[in-house]
Structure formats: structure tokens, C-alpha cells
């Protein structure tokens, strides 16, 4: 059952991702991207990462894509804008993406590593391995526990990056008043 669902959702993810790239219509592309995000969330559910799945839907499929659609509709980006810069960017992006794909495939198949097993791994004890700890489960609680103990530094660095981005947006969008 889980295997079948995995193949179904993986197929939908890949197909919608491909359609999103090749679709000439921006709105169609955005819709394909939403489908891709939602099916990725479904894959997270199959891995029993429920928190990640819900956040994926809430943040990406819900908020980010509404913003995308808003911009697409507001700016009417369907006009034909095939200039030289865009062609170069498309070329560069495809080469980078393809190189990454090749590296990934090589490292999985030729580098002695294997594909992840399809069966779910058994539930581990507290991954931080210190103090009393709580058993490692799929609940949001243990997710938060490891986030705020073992992965505290990466978490804070990510928060700092977001803060930098936010300040950048404020600086860029702020209108200069005449007095200052």
C-alpha cells in the first residue's frame, strides 16, 4: 500500500515539476508548482514526517504560491519577453541543474552508497543522546526537541539569514524622504 502510494505521488511530483518548467503559460506553471508542493507533502506523510508535510503545505503551497500567483496576475508576465539575457539565464540554469542531477545520480549509484530503503526505519531513541530526553517519535514535540537542542546553531543561523533578508527588503523598498 505504502509503496504503491509512493510511486503514485512520486510520479505526480515529477510530472508536475516537468510541466511547470516547460509550461509557456505562467499561471499553468504556478498551478503545476502547487501540485508539485502538495504531492511532496504527501511523500513526507508517507515518511511519517507529519510536521514537515503540514508546514510544506502551509508555507509553500499555501502562502508562497499565493504570492506567486498574485505577482503573476498583477504584472501580467505572459508577454513574450525572450531577450538575450533571459536566454543566457535559462541556459545557465539548465546546465547547473543538469550538473547537479548528474552528481546526485553518480553519488547514489557509483559512489558506493545505496538508495534509501523503502521500509520505514524503526523508531530511534532520543537522537541527542543526552540528559533524560524523550523517545524519538513522529510527533511535533520530538521534532521541536531536537530542533532546540542538537540543531540549535543551524536553527539560529537560518533565523539570522531570514532576518538579513527581511532588513534587505525594508532597505530596498523604503522611499527616501526629502529631509534625510
Amino acid at each position, binding site marked *: 500500500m505504502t509503496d504503491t502510494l509512493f510511486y503514485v505521488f512520486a510520479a505526480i511530483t515529477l510530472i508536475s515539476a516537468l510541466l511547470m518548467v516547460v509550461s509557456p503559460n505562467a499561471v499553468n506553471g504556478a498551478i503545476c508548482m502547487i501540485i508539485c508542493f502538495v504531492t511532496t507533502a504527501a511523500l513526507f506523510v508517507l515518511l511519517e514526517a507529519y510536521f514537515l508535510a503540514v*508546514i510544506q503545505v502551509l508555507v509553500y503551497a499555501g502562502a508562497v504560491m499565493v504570492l506567486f*500567483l498574485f505577482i503573476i*496576475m498583477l504584472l501580467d508576465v505572459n508577454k513574450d519577453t525572450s531577450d538575450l539575457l533571459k536566454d543566457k539565464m535559462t541556459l545557465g540554469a539548465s546546465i547547473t541543474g543538469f550538473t547537479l542531477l548528474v552528481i546526485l545520480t553518480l553519488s547514489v549509484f557509483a559512489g558506493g552508497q545505496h538508495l534509501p530503503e523503502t521500509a520505514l526505519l524503526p523508531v530511534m531513541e532520543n537522537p541527542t543522546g543526552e540528559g533524560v530526553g524523550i523517545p524519538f517519535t513522529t*510527533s511535533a514535540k520530538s521534532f521541536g526537541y531536537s530542533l532546540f537542542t542538537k540543531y540549535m546553531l543551524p536553527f539560529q543561523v537560518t533565523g539570522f539569514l531570514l532576518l538579513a533578508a527581511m532588513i534587505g527588503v525594508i532597505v530596498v523598498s523604503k522611499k527616501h524622504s526629502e529631509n534625510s
Partner: protein
Amino acid sequence: MELLDAFLPYLLPIVYAVAMISVFMGLCSYSVLAERKVCSWIQGRVGPNRTRVPLLGHIPILGNLLTGLGIFQPAADGLKFLFKEEIVPGHVNKFYYMLAPVLALAPALTTMVVLPFGRYVDADGITQPLVLANVDLGMLIILGISSLGVYGIVLAGWASNSKYPFLGGIRASAQMISYELAMGLALLPVFMWAATPGSDYGMSLFGAVQSQQTLWLFIWQPLSALIFLVALFAETNRLPFDMAESETDLVGGFHTEYGCFKFGLFFVAEYAHVIMGSALFVLLFLGGWNFLPGLADPWGESLIGTLLSIAWFTTKVFFMIFFFIWMRWTLPRFRYDQVMSLGWKILLPLAVGNLVFNTIIIALYDTFTR
């Protein structure tokens, strides 16, 4: 018989889900009636009072009473939507035009999977929620899925390929982004208080209800409740926030080009969102099925107690639906820039301040009580 045993685990959830959807859709159609009756009451009119079903409507006194109350009106409304000619305007994008009403209704119906509506006491004496799926991320799932509901409106506005629906769609998307943030931030303090250390509930709605046995969160967290309520009105696109529809300046907004059953789906979706929002507010701030503040559960552990808890929860939800309708016919619509400045300049800072304040209080409480 063996076949039945094998399929029973899959069959029962389907039966439960169908039963819940039937009740929910019944509630939707009768909230439309409630809307019309309350509106006419507020405006000093009589409201729908003429629809009569042949046999039931001709019982001597009862029939006249039911007809006068408009009890048969939802059937007439539904049949009207069904039997109208299905018109698809020539200038629309057909695929998205047909998809949009479905996308508007489906999320509202999906969120009820994690909505608890009562409690029962199991064989071990432990109180359990009556819910289709009792997951510890209930609240997040509702927020996530209901955030997908805006695509129905946005796509309807875009696919209609005409000016006013398009403006409605754009307004809906901007409004949804603005108020989602305040809504989520207003909920955080609630769950920080509800999920005390050592509890296993996490972000489940059942845990939020169980934590309100002595004191309802409406009394304990009035600011969160206010921000959440305002954001709820905005997210359900109800007056005074119905920017997407706004019939005085946008004709009908996103559903201008829609008619017959497709419009009916949008219509039902709006009421489905209202009912879901009411139920959510009752669960989070009005104590769910807890009887009164201080007197949580006087009903006992029998089946009757379970039914009473459901009935009390439903009563509260009906009151909240009435509140939604009451607001609609009392307040005038905001201007669009007022909606935006209320969301970004008042509600969001207020929600952030509320969160920081509660965090400090909880930190102090933990420091001094240990």
C-alpha cells in the same frame, strides 16, 4: 462474510466521513436560511416564508408553522441551482473556470477531518475526542488546508477573463496573505498555554479544549481571541471583509461570471468556511464542549453524556454562526486600503506583541514556580 471483515477497517472510516459530510452540508444549507431569516429580522422584514413541501407542509398547524419559518426553503434553493441552465461564457478559460468552484469547496470540507465535535469516555475511563482523525497536529492541518481555499477564488477571478472578477481575485489573494500571518501568530500563545510541559496533546484541538476545563481561553487570552476573530472574518471573506465579492464596486467580484450550480458551490463554500471558522473559535476560545467556566463536565460518562456534550458544542457553534451573520448585517464594508492597513499595521504588530508578552509571562511563571 470474510470479505466484509477484511474491508471493515476501510469501510467504517468511509461511512463516518460520509455521515459527517452529510450533517455538515445540511448545516450549510440551513445557515443560508439562517442568514436570510436573521437578515430579514434585522431589517424588519419577514424573510422566506412561502415554500411548502406537499405532504409535510399540509399538516394542519405544524405545516403552517414550518412553512412560516422557512424550513423547506433550502430544498427550493438547492433545486433552483440544480435545474438552472448551465451557462459557460465564451471568453473564459474553461478548465480553470470549472475547477475553481471545486477548489473553493474541497478544502472547507477536508478540514473537518481533524475537527473534534464531542467527547466520550472509553472502557478504561479515559476521555477521548469524537473526531475522524485524532492527530497531534490538528490545528496546523486546519491552517494548512484552509490556506489552499483561496486558490478557488483566485482562479475563478483569473479564469473568468473579465475585469471585475480579476480585481476580486487579486484582492482575495492579497487579503489572504495579510491575515494568515496575524491568525497564526494569535494562535501561538494559545497553544503555548494549552500544551503545558508533560502533556501529550501537542497542537491538537482536543488538547486545547481539555486545557479549558476551568477557565475558557476567551477570558484568559482576550487579545488572542480578538485578533483571531478578526482574522477569521477576513479569511472567510465575510463582511466587513468581503473585498473579493464587494458587490457595490465589483458587481459580484470573483463570481460575477458564474451562474447556476457552479455559483451554488461558491455559495455553499462560503457557509462551509463560516461553520468551520465558528467551530474553530468555539474549540479554541469558548471551551469547546465544556459546560461553563469552572463547571467543565457535569454530564457523566454514559452515552447520554456524550450526546449532551455534542449538543452543547453544537449550540455554541450555532451562536457563533449567528454572530457571523449578525456582524454582516450590522457593519458596513471596509475600504480596501483600510483592510490592508488594519491587517499589516494593527493586527500584525498586536499579534507579535501579544506573543512576546505571553512568552515573557510563561518564562517568569516557569522560573518562579519551580
